[in-house]
């Protein structure tokens, strides 16, 4: 899967995602459709995709697997929780579309690291091929018409997932995030509440979609994210010390030896180890492995790997077991 790969700026950027919102012409938006109409939309999309892609009705996917996709950030929580819909997905999960989420189509392309251009190329190719067969709702005045007017126009959302432990540690993160917001981009902490995000993982996306060329949106995100990457690297140089090395190795030590590991604790420790690996403090473990564990130690993903349903207590024991095995 792509999230195990290491790519451009992987020391700071975990992944890049681009999402297009599209709707079929002549259909009401999803929340206004009855079951029959929803099925018609599913059929139309199913018939429009080629054999490269799998079409999975979410009725046929068990809940744990579905929520493991949420943990991998491939589909939204709201989508996994609803009864109807389908997922269009390719072999390496680089392209994942949700059918009948808030819009008829939420098409997403993913890349590891900071790779907006290849993401855009992939999503454009897939969406163009669909548009040859399906008529999307579009107006001259407003561009692509979406269920929620916050997406109208390009329907495009570019999201970059960043690991910013050093900026967090030196205490400038909220200042930086405020500035990013002032520039018209939105920021959120990925785990925990916004103000007390744990794991030091943040997602930055464009907010505006109307009256802008795709390339203008992309350029803006590129400039802002590049600046943040550089700031994070500078901050990492500043905090490099014996104390930090101790912190990293302690985190590694716990992960390697713990018998019970809670989900939140695992992520916090992995965040420290990730920093250590990227700063060459620690060489015992590969970055791709850390990246993989950050996804796989989450509750549903872990149960998919263990191929069994687990109680909370069992889960914490299995998590510790899994991490020990991976670090062995």
């Amino acid at each position: 899967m792509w999230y195990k790969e290491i790519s451009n700026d992987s020391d700071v950027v975990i992944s890049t995602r681009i999402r297009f919102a599209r709707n079929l012409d002549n259909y009401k938006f999803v929340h206004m459709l009855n079951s029959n109409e929803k099925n018609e939309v599913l059929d139309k999309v199913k018939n429009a995709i080629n054999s490269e892609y799998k079409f999975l009705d979410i009725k046929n996917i068990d809940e744990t697997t579905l929520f493991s996709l949420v943990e991998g950030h491939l589909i939204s929580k709201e989508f996994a929780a609803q009864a109807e819909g389908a997922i269009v997905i390719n072999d390496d999960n680089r392209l994942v579309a949700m059918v009948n989420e808030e819009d008829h189509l939420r098409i997403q392309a993913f890349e590891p690291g900071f790779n907006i251009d290849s993401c855009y190329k992939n999503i454009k190719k897939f969406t163009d091929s669909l548009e040859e067969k399906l008529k999307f709702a579009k107006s001259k005045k407003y561009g692509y018409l979406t269920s929620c007017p916050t997406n109208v126009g390009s329907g495009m959302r570019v999201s970059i997932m960043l690991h910013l432990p050093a900026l967090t540690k030196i205490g400038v993160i909220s200042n930086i995030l405020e500035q990013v917001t002032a520039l018209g981009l939105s920021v959120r902490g990925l785990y925990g509440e916004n103000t007390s995000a744990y794991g030091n993982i943040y997602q930055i996306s464009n907010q505006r979609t109307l009256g802008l060329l795709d390339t203008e949106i992309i350029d803006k995100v590129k400039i802002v994210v590049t600046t943040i990457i550089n700031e994070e690297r500078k901050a990492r140089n500043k905090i490099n010390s014996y104390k930090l090395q101790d912190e990293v190795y302690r985190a590694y030590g716990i992960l390697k030896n713990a018998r019970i590991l809670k989900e939140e604790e695992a992520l916090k420790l992995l965040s420290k180890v990730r920093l250590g690996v990227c700063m060459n403090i620690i060489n015992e473990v590969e970055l791709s492995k850390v990246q993989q564990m950050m996804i796989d130690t989450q509750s549903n993903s872990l149960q998919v790997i263990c191929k069994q349903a687990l109680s909370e207590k069992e889960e914490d024991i299995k998590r510790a077991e899994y991490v020990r095995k991976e670090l062995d």
Partner: protein
Amino acid sequence: MKCENCGVNEATVRYYQNINGDKKQLHLCSDCAESLGFTSFSNIFSPMFLDSKNYDFLEEPQVCNVCHYSFDDYLKTGLFGCPNCYESFQDRLDSLFLKLHGKTRHVELEKENKTKKEVTEKSNLSKKDNKLDELKEKLKALIEEEKYEEAAVIRDKIKEIEGK
């Protein structure tokens, strides 16, 4: 009741005055009220609502003619009902989009507008119109945001251009 001033026409305007507790009430016909200068009070607010035609949409609830979704429904859910809603609610979209996106039109049209502007650069008239449309849009948005002071500045600019 007849007008207390001319005593001929039916009184349609009631005027109250209260100066230091000295209360006075006058019943006037609209002609007399105007000639006595009383109607100018309602004009205090009128510059804010430059063109009442623009506010017709406030009177009746707007419903999409395809999916019967209303603008109130949108305010509750944050979602539109169908692609046609964008057509049905277009009177209200410019100010909404200005807030959400800082722009009101899809980029393809914006580009067209730009080229159009370049083509007609020599023609002062259309240039004026463009500017005027832009200002009127801005004014509408500002009023909706209740930024009346800024709105007044724009209103004066519009008057100035229209006057030329």
